[in-house]
């Protein structure tokens, strides 16, 4: 019950690289088919518009999912409170902005710092001591759920249930070529999100800290044996995850225009979907997974009732777990 299992029982007996490659081809084929179906269903403009919408949502999911995946990879901890970290970020920004009167950008930065502190604080107060005691996976996962309740309802307790908004313009929008539109704020959100995601990739790829983070989340034991100071890197991972979650929260709240204490919890499952799709523990995977989930959810509205949008995300989650539990972008990890 230690959650990490001996090599002999990988979810699927040792998956040969060959099959991975094969699956990647199949993936490409599927993508082409999907594209064709989309165009048939929507027509170019609608598809393009749905894609624009999907990129906005997807970028936010990606930001949220990267931290979730790194934490899982390095600690084998499913942080059920991660969604509420997003909420925390949004409300921290609100407090700094409306409460302390900071300009929004400054407020946002404060929020990121605050969320990072929350993550690190919990590591020091809760997770590290529990690991030291050799707590089992179940103990940790249930504590994470408990933490989720505490964070969410503490926010609700203080801020009240009524919806809030950050001081951003959510009504004006730009015309893009080809009769497409994107909200002014959404454009900013998307640009910032992708810029940060690019930065994340660079950081994980080239900085030694980034490499250590990935190493740790790929294989803790290996990382330890290769002399990574796990304690320190784990702190960094929490801070990193916190910053990204906080940012995701602020951006999500801005794009939505109106949010309440449930805002983060509601997208938690979409974040899980992103992480699973990307292969649990893979930062790049989660990133691609997030964008994909965003796109899939929006594209789905071309085929089926918008009511089902969220469910589509969950369905993808279950489908991936059923067909290819190691995820689709997990391969990236090996790069």
């Amino acid at each position, binding site marked *: 019950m230690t959650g990490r299992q001996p090599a002999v029982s990988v979810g699927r007996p040792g998956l040969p690289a060959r099959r991975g490659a094969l699956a990647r081809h199949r993936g490409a084929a599927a993508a082409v088919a999907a594209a064709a179906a989309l165009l048939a269903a929507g027509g170019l403009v*609608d598809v393009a*518009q*749905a894609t624009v*919408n999907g990129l*906005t*949502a997807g970028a*936010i999911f990606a930001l949220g999912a990267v931290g979730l995946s790194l934490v899982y990879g390095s600690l084998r901890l499913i942080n059920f409170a991660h969604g509420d970290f997003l909420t925390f970020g949004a409300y921290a920004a609100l407090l700094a902005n409306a409460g302390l009167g900071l300009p929004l950008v400054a407020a946002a930065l404060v929020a990121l710092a605050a969320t990072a502190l929350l993550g690190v604080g919990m590591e020091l107060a809760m997770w590290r001591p529990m690991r030291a005691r050799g707590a089992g996976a179940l103990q940790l996962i249930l504590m994470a759920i408990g933490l989720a309740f505490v964070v969410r309802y503490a926010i609700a307790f203080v801020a009240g*249930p*009524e*919806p*809030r*908004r950050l001081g951003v313009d*959510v*009504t*004006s*929008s730009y*015309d893009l070529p080809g009769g497409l*539109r*994107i*909200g002014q704020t*959404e454009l900013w959100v998307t640009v910032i999100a992708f810029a940060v995601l690019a930065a994340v990739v660079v950081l994980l790829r080239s900085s030694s800290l980034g490499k250590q983070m990935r190493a740790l989340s790929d294989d803790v034991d290996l990382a330890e044996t290769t002399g990574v100071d796990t304690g320190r890197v784990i702190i960094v991972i929490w801070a990193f995850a916190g910053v990204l979650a906080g940012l995701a929260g602020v951006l*999500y709240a801005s*794009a*939505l*225009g*109106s949010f*309440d204490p*449930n805002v983060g919890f*509601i*997208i938690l499952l*979409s974040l899980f979907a992103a992480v699973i799709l990307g292969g649990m523990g893979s930062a790049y995977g989660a990133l691609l997974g997030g964008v994909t989930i965003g796109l899939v*959810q*929006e594209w789905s*509205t071309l085929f089926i*009732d*918008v*009511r089902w*949008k*969220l469910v589509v995300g969950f369905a993808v989650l279950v489908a991936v777990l059923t067909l290819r539990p190691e995820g689709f972008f997990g391969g990236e990890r090996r790069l």
Partner: protein
Amino acid sequence: MSMGNRAGRTLAAAAAVAALGTAATGCGGDDGGSAGEGGGGASLELTVGVLLPMTGTSSAFGPPLEKATKMAVKQINDAAGKAGVDLRVEVVTADNESEPVASVAAARKLVTEGASCIVGSSSSATTIAVAQSVAIPQGIPMITPMSTAASISDLHANGGVTFRTIPADPMQAEVLADVIAERLDGAEGKTISIAGRDDAFGQGLTSEIKRNWEELGGQATGPLLYDPNASSYNDVAGQIVDGDPAAYVIIDLPQTYAKVGAALLRTGKFSADDLFIAGGQPATIPEDTPPEALNGAVGASPGFPTDGPLVEAFDALWDRSPGVEQQQPYMQNGFDAAMLCALGAVAAQSTDGRAIAEELIAPSAPGGPEYSYQELDQAIADLGAGEDVDFQGVSGPLDLDDNGDIQAGYVNVYRYIDGKLTVERQVQAGD
């Protein structure tokens, strides 16, 4: 829709059960029955229980509703004093979390605290749950100031304890359809786009409105129901404005419309002047909703007289009384619901639930002198003396029918102008 005939199908059986119910509970002891015998001089200690949506989706309406009911009770106790009738009313409240399971638990709490008349609940789902598992089995009358679902009318046949001080969906929908037709000079050949939040409120009203609109000879796209928890609403907005319809009908609560409205504006095709809404809406555009998304929108909501001495008196009373300043929809209905509880008890000369339920309709129905809460003492005196009265609520003449629904309700036709909800006129619907 499917709901309506489902309830209908089970009605006969339900009635049978109800019969059994009364048979079974006829022998049940009645608590608080210290009254009952004796008439005029008898002392009545009535506890009114109020189900408040303090948390969850309807939480905006909780605090004003609480204030309104407490105001009503104060009026009653003062009036009883003046009338020299020994009636003391106390209020107990509980949060129904805008959610059925919690509503039932909350209602039980009210009953355990001695409530023999319940004001509530909020959303139709919560009201039906409470009716089914508390009010009907225990014979406790409940008067909802907020639930408008058509299916609630069917519940009254089952135990005769469910009432409302608010017009049901069909009434609202009919009025709104007429208003739209009038604004568009006729429905013939006009296509409107109907959408709403994916819950009991949205599902119920959108289908009613579509039906009414089509009866007027118009066409409608939708109803497009959307998830109040969706991660973005651009897709919804896009589909609502698609094929630029003659008008938009959007049934939603403020907290979701804040997001949908913003998305609608971003499409660049949307103007709130073509927007029609229904249901209770806040008196001023909420802080988190973009004003352009609502300014100019025309709506119909279960209403209350908006001018005349009664209204001024009530507004003055509201401003004098402790609690939230901001007026919200439904509070007048809540005020009246609490009033009916007390009048029912006086008329029944008992605080037993079933006895009150028996006497709830008469004091509000036509017949006898008309009194408003300002002449409450006389109303109480007359009822105490066993005479009939026709109580006039601040939300309308009430006049409950045999289903516990109000026959003649005011439906307000309002419009958001400069961020303020201003009632343009009132329609006497029903009858």
